[in-house]
C-alpha cells in the first residue's frame, strides 16, 4: 500500500503591522503543527507577499501563494482584531485566490490586546471564508491580552494555551482528512 500523502496545513499570519504580537502566535501554531506526524506546514507572512494594491481579487494573484493554497488541505488563519475587525490586508490577500480554497478546512486563531481574544474579528471573518469555499471548523483559539502571553523572546508564558491548540488542531486535521477524501472520491450531485 502506498504511504498516505502528508496533509498540507499552512499558517497564514494575517497582519503587516509593525511590532505585531500575532507573529509569536503564528510561530507557535506552526510549531505545534510540525510536531504532529503526517503534516507539512509553513508560515505565510502576508507582509512578505508581493501583492499589488492598485487592484483587487484574482487579478492580484501571486503564483507562489496560489500554489501553496492549491496544495493546502487546510489553513490556519491567525487574525488579530483591529478596531473590532480583521485586518484589511488579510482580506486583500485571501481575495487573491478562489478556486484554490474550495472544499478545504480552515481554523481561525484570534488575537487581541484586550480581553476578548479577537472574537469580533473572527465573527466577521467566518462569512468571508465561507464565500471563498472554505469550511470553517467549530474550534477557535483566542489569544486575549496577547502582550502578556509571550515573553520578550517570543516563548509562551501561559501553558494553558497548549491543550486549547491541541483541541483546535485535532478538529482541523479531522476536517482536512475528511474533506480531502470528499474532494478526491465523492462526486457532486
Amino acid at each position, binding site marked *: 500500500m502506498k504511504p498516505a*500523502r502528508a496533509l498540507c496545513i499552512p499558517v497564514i499570519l494575517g497582519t503587516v503591522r509593525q511590532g505585531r504580537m500575532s507573529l509569536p502566535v503564528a510561530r507557535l501554531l506552526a510549531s505545534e503543527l510540525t510536531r504532529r506526524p503526517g503534516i507539512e506546514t509553513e508560515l505565510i507572512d502576508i507582509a512578505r507577499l508581493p501583492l499589488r494594491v492598485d487592484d483587487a*481579487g*484574482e*487579478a492580484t494573484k501571486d503564483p507562489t501563494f*496560489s*500554489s501553496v*493554497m*492549491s*496544495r493546502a488541505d487546510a489553513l490556519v488563519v491567525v487574525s488579530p482584531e483591529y478596531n473590532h475587525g480583521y485586518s484589511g490586508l488579510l482580506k486583500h490577500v485571501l481575495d487573491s485566490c*478562489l*478556486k*484554490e480554497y*474550495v*472544499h478545504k478546512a480552515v481554523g481561525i486563531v484570534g488575537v487581541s490586546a484586550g480581553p476578548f481574544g479577537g472574537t469580533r474579528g473572527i465573527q466577521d471573518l467566518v462569512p468571508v471564508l465561507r464565500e471563498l*469555499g472554505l469550511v470553517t471548523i467549530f474550534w477557535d483559539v483566542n489569544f486575549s491580552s496577547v502582550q502578556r502571553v509571550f515573553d520578550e523572546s517570543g516563548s509562551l508564558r501561559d501553558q494553558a494555551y497548549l491543550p486549547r491548540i491541541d483541541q483546535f488542531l485535532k478538529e482541523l486535521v479531522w476536517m482536512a482528512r475528511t474533506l*480531502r477524501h*470528499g*474532494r*478526491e*472520491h*465523492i*462526486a*457532486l*450531485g
Partner: protein
Amino acid sequence: MARNASPMICPRCGIEMNHHAEKLVYPTESGDDAAVDSVLGGIVEELHACPACGAGASRRAGDRGPRDLPG
C-alpha cells in the same frame, strides 16, 4: 465516483478526476457576460480533484478541457 460525460483527466496521473464542487463566480470582465448563467446569476465553475495525487483543476461548466490547473 460518478461518470462525467466529459471527464477531466489528471495531467500527472492520466486518470479521471473527481468532480467535487461547482462554485458560482461573478464576471469581472465584459467578455465574461456570455458565460453567466441567467438563472443562477453567475458563472458556474467546476472543481475537480485527482483521486491519486490530489491535484486540483477547474473549468467553466460546459467547457470540455481544463481552464486552470492550480498547483
